[in-house]
C-alpha cells in the first residue's frame, strides 16, 4: 500500500516556500470571499455573465485567443478597471504559480476556456509554465481533450501524476473542515500559490447542480464519502478546506453549453448553446447565478425545479453559512454582458 510520503529536506523547503508565497499574496491581495458576513466589502457580491456567439460554437468551440478577449472583458466588468491587466493583477501576481482546476468528469470544462484563461493571465506576466491545468487523473484530462504536458509551456496533468510523492498524489496531512476530513491534491499544497476553479455548469443527479464549488470534490482524495444528503454540507466544507480557501482567487464557470438535466454525465439532448461564461470572486454567488440559469431553462422546457424532483440545491446556503460567499440572489449584483443572462431560449 502507499504510505505517506516522507518529508524530505527538499520537500520541506518547497512546501515552506509555497506557504510563504501564499501568505504573502494573501496579505497584499483583496479578499476573495466578498460579501460574506465576516468580510467587509460591498453589500452585494458581483457576478459577471458574459455571452457571445463565439462561445456557443459547437465542437472545439472558440479559440483560446477569442476566449481570452471575452475573459478580459468580463474581468474589466467584474472589477471596474479600464484595463484588463489591472483587473487580473488584482487577483494574481506575476510570480504566482497558478493551478486551474478544470472539471473532466462527465461534461468537461472546454480546453479553450482554460487555455483562454492562461492567455489572459499572461497579460500580467504569468508565463505559461507557471500555470497548471489539472484534475484528478491524467486519464480524465485526456478524455476531455486536454494535452498532457509536464514541462515546456502550460503544464497539464492529473493529481495522480504526482503519486510518486505518496498517497496517490495527495497530501500526507488530513485537512478537516466541517463534516469533511480529506487529503488534498499536492497540486494545490505543493505546487500552487494561487487557485482558480474553472468548472462547468451542469445538472447533478444528487446535488441539483454542479459548478465552481463542487468542482473541488476533484481536489480531495475521498469525494465518494460526501455524496449523501445532496452532497450537503460536504460541498461547502470541501471548498472551505484551508489549502483551497487560502489560494482561491477567482472562479470561472463554463456555461458555453450547459446541461440542465441528467448530469453529470454528458447528455447532448439536455445541453443547449447558452454561449456564456460566469466570472466572480464569490464561488457561492457564481453557483447561485448558474443555478438560476438552469432553473430558468428547466422551466422553459416544462421541467420541474430541482426541489420538486428530489434534489434540492442545499450547498449554496451552507456555503453562505460558512462565510464562503452570498447565496441569496437579491444580494448578488449580476453584470450581464451580451444577451440578457436569464434569456435561455
Amino acid at each position, binding site marked *: 500500500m502507499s504510505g505517506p510520503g516522507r518529508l524530505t529536506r527538499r520537500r520541506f523547503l518547497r512546501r515552506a516556500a509555497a506557504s510563504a508565497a501564499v501568505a504573502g499574496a494573501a496579505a497584499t491581495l483583496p479578499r476573495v470571499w466578498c460579501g460574506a458576513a465576516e468580510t467587509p466589502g460591498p453589500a452585494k457580491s458581483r457576478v459577471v455573465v458574459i455571452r457571445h456567439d463565439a462561445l456557443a460554437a459547437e465542437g472545439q468551440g472558440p479559440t483560446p485567443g477569442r476566449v481570452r478577449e471575452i475573459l478580459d472583458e468580463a474581468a474589466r466588468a467584474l472589477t471596474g478597471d479600464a484595463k484588463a491587466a489591472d483587473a487580473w493583477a488584482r487577483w494574481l501576481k506575476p510570480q504566482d504559480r497558478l493551478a486551474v482546476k478544470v472539471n473532466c468528469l462527465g461534461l468537461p470544462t472546454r480546453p479553450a476556456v482554460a487555455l483562454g484563461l492562461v492567455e489572459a493571465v499572461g497579460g500580467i506576466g504569468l508565463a505559461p509554465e507557471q500555470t497548471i491545468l489539472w484534475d484528478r487523473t491524467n486519464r480524465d484530462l485526456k478524455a476531455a481533450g486536454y494535452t498532457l504536458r509536464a514541462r515546456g509551456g502550460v503544464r497539464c496533468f492529473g493529481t495522480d501524476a504526482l503519486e510518486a510523492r505518496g498517497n496517490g498524489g495527495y497530501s500526507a496531512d488530513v485537512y478537516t473542515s466541517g463534516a469533511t476530513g480529506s487529503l488534498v491534491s499536492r497540486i494545490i499544497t505543493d505546487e500552487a500559490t494561487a487557485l482558480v476553479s474553472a468548472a462547468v455548469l451542469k445538472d447533478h443527479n444528487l446535488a441539483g447542480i454542479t459548478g465552481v464549488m463542487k468542482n473541488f470534490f476533484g481536489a480531495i482524495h*475521498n469525494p465518494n464519502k460526501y455524496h*449523501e444528503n445532496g452532497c450537503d454540507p460536504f460541498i461547502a466544507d470541501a471548498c472551505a478546506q484551508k489549502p483551497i480557501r487560502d489560494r482561491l482567487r477567482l472562479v470561472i464557470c463554463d456555461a458555453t453549453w450547459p446541461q440542465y438535466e441528467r448530469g453529470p454525465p454528458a447528455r447532448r439532448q439536455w445541453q443547449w448553446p447558452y454561449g456564456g461564461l460566469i466570472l466572480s470572486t464569490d464561488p457561492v454567488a457564481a453557483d447561485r447565478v448558474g443555478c438560476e440559469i438552469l432553473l430558468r431553462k428547466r422551466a422553459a422546457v416544462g421541467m420541474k425545479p430541482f426541489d420538486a424532483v428530489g434534489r434540492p440545491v442545499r450547498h449554496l446556503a451552507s456555503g453562505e453559512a460558512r462565510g464562503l460567499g452570498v447565496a441569496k440572489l437579491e444580494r448578488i449584483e449580476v453584470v450581464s454582458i451580451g444577451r440578457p443572462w436569464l434569456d435561455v431560449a
Partner: protein
Amino acid sequence: MMPNGRTTRRQFLTALGAGTCALCAARALGRDISGESTSGARTQVAVHDAMWFERLPDKAVRCLLCPRECVVAEVERGYCGVRENQGGDYKTLVYGNLCSTNIDPIEKKPLYHYLPTTTALSVATAGCNMECKFCQNWRISQYRPEQVESLLILPENLVRIATVRRTPTLAFTYSEPVVFYEYMHDAAALGRRQGVGSVMISNGYIREPALRQLCRVLTAVKIDLKAFTEKFYADQCAAHLEPVLKTLEVLADTGIHTEVVVLLIPTLNDSADEIRQMAKWLVDHMGRDVPLHFSRFHPTYRVQNLPPTPVATLDRARKVAMDAGLRYVYVGNVPFTEGGNTYCPSCGKTVIKRVGYNVDPAGLKDGGCASCGHKIPGVWTQQQALAFKPKEMAAPKGSVM
C-alpha cells in the same frame, strides 16, 4: 480493526514471498483480467463485473450490496469508492487488487474460538462503506483503488498461496471486505472446494441477501460492533446502527460461527450502561455463547484528541458484559491480561491461555474443557470449518448478479 503491530522482517519477507509467488503463478497460468490504467503512473486498476445492483433509467444503477443503496450515475462511484458505473454497467475496481497481504495468527483477527494457534492468509483492497473517524487502517480503507499500490492476485492464486504456505484460512480483513465482495465470494468458494476456509472481518454493513449468499462460502465471521447507539454510528462512522444489528441477527440465523468486537473509545462508547445494553442485546439475539471482544483504541486519523483506552476500562467492560450473561468475553490489544484467556463456564478452569499471540490450548480437548468436558462453542477443526452449511433461503428478488 487490524493490524496494530509493526511489520516484522519475517512478516515482510513472508508477504513478499507470497506476492512473488502469486505473480509467478499468474504469469505461468497466463491468466489475467482486463485491466486499465486510471492513473498517470504505476497503479493498475482491474475492472470486473459487480454483483448486487439494479439498473435504473438513463444508465444509472442502484447498488444493492450495502444498506446505503447508492444511486450511481454514469461515470460516478458509490460511497465505497471502489464500485463504478461504467456506461450503465456496474463494475468493481478491486477484484484481486490487493493492497495488503500478510500471514497472521488467527487470534489477530481476533477470532478466539476458531482454529486456535493457526494462521490466516490475510488480504485487503482499498475502500470501505463507512467513514469511521477513528479507523486504525484509514490509509487503505479511506482510499480509492488508484491511490494505493496494489498487487493483482486472482482467487486461484490466492488459494494456491494459502495451500503452499499451509495456512488453513483466508481472512478478508484490514479494510472492509464487503466492498470487495465479488473477490471475497469467488476466493472463498474456490478455497472451500480446495480445503481452505474463509473468514470475513467486517463492519457488518451489508444487505441481507448479499450476506446470506456469502455465508454459503464463508466458514466464520467477525463483526465490528462500533457502539450501541445510533448517535455514535451517525457522528463517528457516517452510518447507522440498525443494519449492523440486522446483520448480527442474520448471522445468528445462519448458524455461522461469529465473534463480535467492540473498540472502546474513551468517553464516546465506553459507558457501563451502553455496554450493559449491548451485552443484553447480544444475549437475546445471538445467545450467551457468542464471543465478545473489547479492544483498545489508539489515537489516529480524525480522532487524535482522546487518549488510548485505559486497561481498567476494558476490564470493567468485560465484567459488565459477563454480568449481563455473556460467557466468553475478552480484552484485546492488551498483551498481559487474564481477559485474554478462555475459561470454562462450568468449572472455571483455563481452557485456552493467551499471552499476546502466544496461544496454549492445552485445556481444550475434543472441543470441550479438558477438565470437566463442558463443550466450548467454536470451530476447533478444519473439518468442522469446511462442513459448515447455512440455512438455505429463497433466491433474493430484485437483484442482478
